[in-house]
């Protein structure tokens, strides 16, 4: 038998995706340890990474980082393929689509804060929709909408400011250096 060697070559871009996804996963795990009073309300710090990656490296890389973060974060938290994972996936995909559309807005007027807020609203909106339509149909979550949207407004603003600050303080050349 001829010995065969399978070699997986990781390109520089692969390494960058891995490093950024690791940062996002770290933030996801860290914030899972913070006790929060209401289920469903959390800071979503990993979105800072998604935003920075989207601005620096484009939407493909942002999609990779967000996707890896959602799957690996769920695996690490023991939530893979649970309803919580599906909610996270739905929110992640929906907000990523909105981000990809919103990054085309004129940069002179709209910065990371606007994108972050839109993403936060989309994230919780799509999750509530999934819960309402599929997980708990008829549980009239409309009553919780102001609460969740209010929380999304605060976290969206905070994450947006953090992303804006990072984008300004990190020169465009640096790779993989995220929070």
């Amino acid at each position: 038998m001829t010995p065969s060697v399978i070699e997986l070559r990781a390109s520089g871009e692969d390494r960058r995706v891995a490093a950024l996804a690791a940062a996002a996963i770290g933030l996801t795990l860290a914030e899972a340890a913070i006790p929060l009073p209401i289920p469903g309300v959390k800071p979503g710090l990993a979105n800072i990474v998604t935003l920075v990656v989207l601005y620096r490296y484009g939407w493909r890389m942002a999609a990779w980082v967000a996707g890896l973060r959602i799957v690996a974060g769920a695996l690490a938290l023991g939530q893979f393929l649970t309803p919580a994972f599906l909610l996270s996936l739905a929110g992640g995909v929906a907000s990523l689509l909105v981000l990809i559309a919103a990054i085309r807005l004129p940069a002179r007027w709209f910065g990371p804060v606007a994108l972050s807020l839109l993403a936060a609203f989309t994230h919780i909106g799509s999750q509530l929709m999934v819960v309402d339509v599929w997980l708990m149909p008829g549980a009239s979550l409309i009553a919780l909408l102001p609460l969740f949207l209010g929380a999304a407004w605060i976290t969206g603003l905070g994450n947006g400011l953090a992303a804006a600050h990072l984008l300004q303080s990190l020169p465009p050349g640096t790779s993989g250096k995220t929070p």
Partner: protein
Amino acid sequence: MTACRAGLLRPGDWLILALGLALVVALSAHQAGSQEGRVIVRLDGKPHTEASLRLNRVIEVAGPLGISRVEIRDGRVRIAADPSPLQLCVRQGWIPPGAAAVCLPNRVAVENAAAGYDTLSY
């Protein structure tokens, strides 16, 4: 550094922030008006009366057997009197949130439409 700070928020960001805040405020104002629980009285399956749980009142429903009296008091609702022979719906007492009492012989159903959950897990 000051220029740096000023660049964090651009005009469109303020616009989106204001719109988002307006949406949240409008939704909460809307919720505050409609948050009270509702009582839905049905006769023959068709909506007969819809009332607020907050307002004490007695609703009289004329069914095929006679008059059913639905009593709303102190945020609770029950069927106070009913001509049905077994009196099942009357003996059910105060109807918990999310539940309903049905007087089948007299075709009357009363639903306490306040949000009620059997279980909540996360």
